[in-house]
């Protein structure tokens, strides 16, 4: 086994670490690589930043475009039909 994982392998580990606890060996490989590789350390920080930004954007309503007039009409008609039956 190589003593250091590649950046590509590390990107897989960093991503999986965002989704749950890694097995011990993977965790160590990730930590070791992040300690010596500026790019991967940055990648890892940006993954977390990305999550924060997406969650923040999703939890505040932006009052951007809503339903189109056509879609609204279609849904209203659908509701009307359903209650008529």
């Amino acid at each position: 086994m190589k003593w250091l994982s590649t950046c590509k392998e590390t990107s897989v580990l960093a991503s999986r670490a965002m989704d749950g606890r890694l097995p011990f060996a993977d965790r160590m490989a990730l930590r070791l690589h992040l300690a010596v590789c500026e790019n991967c350390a940055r990648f890892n920080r940006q993954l977390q930043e990305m999550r924060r930004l997406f969650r923040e954007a999703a939890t505040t309503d932006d009052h951007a475009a809503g339903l189109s007039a056509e879609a609204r009409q279609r849904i209203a008609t659908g509701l009307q039909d359903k209650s008529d039956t």
Partner: protein
Amino acid sequence: MDTLDAQTWLADHGDYLFRVARRQLHSDELAEDAVQETLLAALSAQTRYAGNASPRTWLTAILKHKIVDLIRRSVREVEIPCDADGEEAVDLLFKQDGHWAEPLRPWGNPQAEAELGQLRRVLDECADRLKPVMAQVFSLREVAGMETEEICKELGITPTNCWVLLHRARLFMRQCLELNGFSKAGAA
């Protein structure tokens, strides 16, 4: 209680529900379906609506299930891209020896520097550029905060497929955000 309530819900909360759905489904059409199915379900279930939650909270809870249903259906319709599809795009980001092809540029503080609306637009545009299933799995995880296990179970895909999709989605999203003005000299 009759359709009047459902029509009122549509008028009062339709746009909000649409935006929530749009952000996770990455398709106007699917988001409209989600709103319609939510209101229809609400209409049939309204006797069970105890009124102890606000209508918006109640409708949003129904919407969550409808979003997962719609994603499950769209996942069935397409092959999960766990093979060559997307692998080549990933390969472009790395050199043969596994190093990054390009150094990663630091991001500034997007929150402070960009107007929130602008930031949102970039996030949405980049997510919309992913393959639909990839964008949907990414959103269930990163936007809705569902656990990976739950996503796999709901969508009937293996954890390995899920991790592959998420890894690719994250690589592409990061790249897209960098190309769209997230990179700034001298920070994070």
